[in-house]
């Protein structure tokens, strides 16, 4: 990449990226949404989607009890059916990381990582010092994944070097022990051109994953946005040989939504990305819908919410 870390060369490079035609991108996403996933492929895809869920609770009202219950669900999403796989990760606020890690370890969830949101999530409005402290805190308490937010104010006002430097700094804090997801908050970036630029910026700065949203702003992980991000990781791999992961978060509530995401991955970045190490889905309500659909596929009749646990 012809970027030497200076803001000038970064801006130059981002300017050379081909533009995105919004109507065309939306058309492509809409066409992929017509794919019909049935029978054996649906079974396979549902289980894959479950394994990709970053089961999330990010509420001001979160309590240790709530987080513990979530962890139990993460390990055994359906207590009545041991064939249901565990989820991809647990995603919580910083001060819940230790509780989550302990609960998971005590319940057979040693392989499920804890992802922490940090860097003054969701707004990103704090000093660099605070953001670094925030990240270190999470890591010290057992987080293996960090979901950071970019400074959208800096991005939109053209201070791209600042955005770059922040990501680089947080990645340094993560080191090799934790993978870094960079949240672009695409709802605030608005245009697909910005999504493309921000994706590249994050990848160049050291992101292991690029993530659409905090889930606190709508619109979040719309299909055209995810499409553009998948194109970015596809092209980045071609140029560097490095595969970066993608995580849509927010607004993915039903099995149908999840299927559409998997199709997008399959026909954009490619089947190599159809694995939890390269694709995650940030969600909470989605898991129960996946379970109900799984029941329907297994039993042949429609399920009811009474038969899946609240948490």
């Amino acid at each position, binding site marked *: 990449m012809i970027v030497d870390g200076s803001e000038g060369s970064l801006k130059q490079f981002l300017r050379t990226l081909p533009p995105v035609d919004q109507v*065309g991108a939306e058309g492509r996403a809409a066409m992929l949404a017509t794919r019909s996933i049935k029978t054996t492929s649906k079974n396979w*895809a549902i289980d894959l989607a479950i394994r990709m869920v970053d089961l999330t609770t990010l509420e001001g009202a979160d309590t240790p009890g709530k987080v513990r219950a979530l962890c139990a669900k993460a390990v055994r999403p359906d207590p009545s059916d041991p064939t249901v796989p565990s989820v991809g990760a647990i995603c919580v606020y910083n001060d819940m990381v230790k509780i989550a890690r302990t609960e998971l370890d005590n319940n057979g969830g040693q392989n499920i990582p804890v992802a922490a949101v940090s860097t003054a999530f969701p707004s990103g409005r704090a000093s660099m010092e605070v953001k670094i402290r925030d990240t270190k805190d999470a890591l010290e308490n057992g987080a293996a994944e960090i979901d950071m937010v970019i400074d959208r104010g800096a991005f939109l006002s053209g201070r791209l070097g600042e955005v770059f430097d922040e990501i680089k700094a947080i990645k340094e804090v993560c080191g090799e022990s934790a993978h870094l997801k960079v949240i672009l908050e695409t709802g605030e970036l608005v245009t697909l051109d910005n999504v493309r630029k921000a994706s590249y910026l994050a990848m160049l700065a050291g992101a292991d994953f690029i993530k659409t949203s905090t889930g606190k702003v709508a619109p979040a992980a719309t299909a055209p946005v995810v499409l553009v991000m998948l194109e970015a990781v596809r092209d980045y791999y071609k140029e560097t040989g490095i595969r970066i992961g993608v995580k849509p978060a927010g607004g993915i509530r039903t099995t149908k939504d999840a299927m559409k995401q998997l199709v997008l991955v*399959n026909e954009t970045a*490619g089947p190599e990305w159809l694995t939890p190490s390269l694709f995650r889905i940030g969600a909470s309500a989605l898991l129960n819908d996946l379970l109900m659909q799984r029941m329907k596929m297994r039993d042949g009749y429609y399920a009811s919410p009474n038969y899946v646990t609240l948490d």
Partner: protein
Amino acid sequence: MNERQVSNFEYAPAPESTSIVNIKSEYGLFINGKFVAPKSGKRFATINPATEEVLSKVAYADLADVNLAVNAARSAFTKTWSKMPPAERGKYLFRIARILQERAREFAVLETLDNGKPIRESRDTDIPLAAAHFFYHAGWADKLSHAGMGTNPKPIGVAGQIIPWNFPLLMLAWKIAPALATGNTVVLKPAETTPLTALLFAEVCQQAGLPAGVVNIITGDGVTGSHLVNHPGIDKIAFTGSTGVGKAIARAIADTNKSATLELGGKAANIVFEDAAIDEAVEGIVNGIFFNQGHVCCAGSRLLVQENVQDEVIEKLKRRMSLIRIGNPLDKNTDLGAINSAAQLARIREISDSGDLEGAERWSPECELPKAGFWYPPTIFTGVSQSHRIARDEIFGPVLSVLTFRTPQEAIEKANNTPYGLSAGVWSDKGSRILWTAQRLRAGVIWTNTFNKFDATSPFGGYKESGWGREGGRHGLAGYLKAGN
């Protein structure tokens, strides 16, 4: 080099059920509001091109049948349709539009069975556009003083309409809707290989209570068509099909008072500039030539790519092409369906083979073609020059010829260097360049940063040997009206 996408995410078969259609074992001709047997008793088979199984036997209309149909149309015009208040005419068209919407799924499945196109396309494109075409024209029936043909334009009379096999129901809508809205009556001959949705449409006319004789549908072949063209009771011909036949029609009516609109062939240039949104342009290239198996008169069959982005575009194009799913047209995940007939497949092969012979480089993704039926893989030829047959002749199949250009002026010259002039595509992020290019292209429909978009309000038709007149929009009414005050 063939690339193969290795995928664990195999989409299991997702077939659309055919239980919704009820194909009769044989059909008559729809004349004067009823289905009647052909005078000669002759019938011919129509098959499913994906499987070669016979779907039904339809009637063969000879001169006597054509006579009957034209007389029925004339009688309906004189006694009923021309006397009817325009608003009431419009209401029949609204009814037809609504019934098409109600029976949309049935029509989509039938179209796919008879034509071979993917169910996704007939469901999401053909049928909705057809219904919308009737809906749009229904509203014109009582507003003709605003059509730009004077304050009191008049219908021409009886129209003879001949349509092709590539968009059977949609082409029927493009012909019948404006003709009826403007007060004419019609005799329509669907294509030999795709008569079924036209015959089902006749049922819709009955359900809508359309007065007998306003619409007549006669199945047959090219001979039937020429009887219709030559019939003295026809005032106007509307033809969509090959340029060769179009010219024959023009000659045939030369010493008559008949008018004609012709929508003929094309060899459209799809121009990709260096500053295009590349991913979307690649989608547009694919859509431009592989939509409907390339059986599209306005297909973007010549890719004109700016030389300095050629490698990037072709590489992304090949990758994208290897995602094209070819197979059972009734499967909801199929992207590329069957070639409509053995004859068309032979034509595609013959012209494409000339590409190999003339030195162009052929590439197709690896794909498994079904054993029965007529199939051709999505194909591109690179290293093509203007003199190659595959750059000049309309192939009417999923075959793209790739040429390059260095400057915008060169792109224009190459794009226009053809006797055809139906359509063109332009891909650039720069507005003024888009408009500059559009201004210089000699084509009737120019898609910029998109392709193969159709709308009832948007006039469609070609320059030069791509035909006469326009269909759709206010401009499309002119072909069916005599100016008057």
